[in-house]
């Protein structure tokens, strides 16, 4: 099981402090990893990153001031500098020197018509760099009067993917596309505001309003049986609806190709071309599953698929490219019952276990 971090306070600063104290060890792992990573990918030394990170403050202040307070609290609780926690929350934006290296993830949503047990499911594999696995934690955020959130994050981050107590699930996948405008709102704040939302309207509104620097795919699933996929960019967003109650997305534009890159677009994450149909192929069998156990087994088999191993849906390090990638966590969220199942690494090795937290309690 992944480390479980529970924070609970109506005060953002206090929540942050709790988070920082409880996740200090994992934050240390993350800081060490990204120190090397940023220098390698964008040529920025850690000193330079720390010096420039405060430029994000006004941008975040305007978009999600509470999350900024939480970042301050995390810094106090963990003993790491405010700028360092800011950097962890801007890691996607700080690595864009290398367009051939985006988060590889495969996300899915199943609504009642596609699942044998009639439940609404969402989840994903989270494929990221070898060396980050020890930095991830499961975070439970109680923040009255806002919805309670359960999510998987790299320690120190205020948002990534997860679900909340109003029955909203959020899954995310990197989309590489080298266009946009300089300083935007980093992805963790956008995702946190989505999961802070009380209604699907508010959640979608966040995406339409955010001025971001990166492209990112966001899959929204609601327990009432709604799902939609948004390919978000600094400009236009593309949109995709489910087919027969199912949505699957990876790291290549499927709903649209942004005009800015239309002449030349080739996904660097070309494995998306088989990851999506492979997962779809498995999930089509979920409809025939006779029970919740069977339905979840079908989903687990989809997320553990080994076609084109090791660069498969269930990603393993490939010695041919230096072994840089792996599935660091995988989730199956039952939005109907509120159960959150997690595999702390490759699902083929770890299997899925239910978190001790129910979304709705």
């Amino acid at each position: 099981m992944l480390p479980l971090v529970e924070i609970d306070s109506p005060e953002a600063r206090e929540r942050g402090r709790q988070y920082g104290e409880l996740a200090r060890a994992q934050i240390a792992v993350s800081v060490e990893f990204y120190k090397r990573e940023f220098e390698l990918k964008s040529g920025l030394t850690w000193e330079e990153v720390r010096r420039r990170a405060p430029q994000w403050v006004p941008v975040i202040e305007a978009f999600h001031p509470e999350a900024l307070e939480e970042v301050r609290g995390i810094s106090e609780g963990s003993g790491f500098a405010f700028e360092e926690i800011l950097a962890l929350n801007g890691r996607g934006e700080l690595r864009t020197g290398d367009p051939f290296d985006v988060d590889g993830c495969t996300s899915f949503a199943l609504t009642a018509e596609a699942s044998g047990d009639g439940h609404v499911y969402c989840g994903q594999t989270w494929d990221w760099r070898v060396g980050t696995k020890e930095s991830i934690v499961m975070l439970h955020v109680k923040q009255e009067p806002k919805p309670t959130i359960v999510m998987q994050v790299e320690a120190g981050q205020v948002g990534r993917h997860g679900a909340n107590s109003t029955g909203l699930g959020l899954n995310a996948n990197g989309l590489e596309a080298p266009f946009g405008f300089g300083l935007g709102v980093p992805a963790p704040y956008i995702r946190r505001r989505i999961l802070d939302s009380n209604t699907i309207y508010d959640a979608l509104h966040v995406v339409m309003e955010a001025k971001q620097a990166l492209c990112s795919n966001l899959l929204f699933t609601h327990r009432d049986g709604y799902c939609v996929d948004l390919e978000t960019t600094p400009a236009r967003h593309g949109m995709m609806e489910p087919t027969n109650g199912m949505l699957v997305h990876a790291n290549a534009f499927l709903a649209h190709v942004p005009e800015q890159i239309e002449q030349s677009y080739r996904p660097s994450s070309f494995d998306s071309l088989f990851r999506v149909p492979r997962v779809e192929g498995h999930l089509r069998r979920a409809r025939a599953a006779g029970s919740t156990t069977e339905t979840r087994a079908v989903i687990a088999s989809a997320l553990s698929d080994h076609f084109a191993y090791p660069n498969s849906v269930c990603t393993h390090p490939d010695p041919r490219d230096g072994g840089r990638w792996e599935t660091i966590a995988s989730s199956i969220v039952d939005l109907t019952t509120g159960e959150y199942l997690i595999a702390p690494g490759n699902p083929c090795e770890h299997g899925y276990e239910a978190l001790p937290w129910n979304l709705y309690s």
Partner: protein
Amino acid sequence: MRISLIEIAGPPRERGRQYGEQAREHIARSIAWYSEQFTATASLQWDVVLENARRWEPLVEAYLPDALEEMQGIAEGAGVTYEEILALNGRGELSSGNPFLDEANDECSSYSILPEAAGDGHAYCGQNWDWRSAILDTVVMLRIEQPELPTIVMQVEAGQVGRQGANSAGLGLNANGLSARFGARLGMPQPYIRRKILNSWDMNEALEAVFKSKQSLCTNLLLSHRDGFIVDLETTPGRHGWGYPKDGVLVHTNHFRYFVPKQIEETYRVTSPDSLYRAERIERVLARVGETTTSEQMHALIGEALSDHFGYPNSVCNHPDPNHPWFDQNETVASSIVDLTTGEYWIAHGNPCENEYELLPWNLYDSSSTSPAARIPLRSAPSIRA
């Protein structure tokens, strides 16, 4: 067998020599044909082609360096110059440019069938390869055994290092010209891209070969895998489009079906109008693959699709059109049925309406090389505790 079989093995230079020696006559015929044809279709004199052929070298060196060694070997074995072999491997890129002609086009019809759709539960792929009538006798079947890489079986014009075929890793490749021109002038010729695909151990490597190439032509590449996966790629010098099978079957001919590149969006028209009905005709027959129960019936059904004469002579089974000039006489020079499940490779040399499909004496999976991925241990199946 009607078609010439060539088997080569060993390091690049050595296997190239074997290739050149065994295909010496075919290569001579190919050079004789293209040295005249480029003049007609692209206003290119053969000596100008040879003078410029080495300009491809640095591109190939960066992308598929072993191919250069192999071509040196082919030239030595066949007793021709290295530049001539470079030119044969750039024939698609050299075959267009005359403003008074339709673009020269490999007018092929490709198909792929998923095992769950086929009556016998096998994965199939193949195509009609429609090209100049004059090159019929330059076509050979090539089997390449190469250290550390999958074993390849493919149909090529003699002297070429890559075209269409399948490999011992269960990967099939079929290809069709897409007659649009824009973007790069000097780019990676198709044979190298296709060879790199067939050098791949898995779908990820094959896609990498496609997505990391800088090519000058537009080509459709149909990739199939025996584990039941098909993706079709409309590749261009810029963006690539892609699509998947419907009801377990995918057919592609010579026009863009998934997108129209932005660069030609305002003016794009299909240059080979027969492409429109060839795809539909094959799809119509292959819609019945689920009704078969045996592999013999599957072969017969695929053969029926590939022998279709609707729109004759510009039909799926393509015959020369007397209304076209001498250098633009096309016909089906080879037709293939590849069973990726059993490893059987069937070929009809020439029009399938007149020539039987013959089983090659090589099974795809009769190979001693193993994938590096096979050496990474796989763990147990997932469990759920809840």
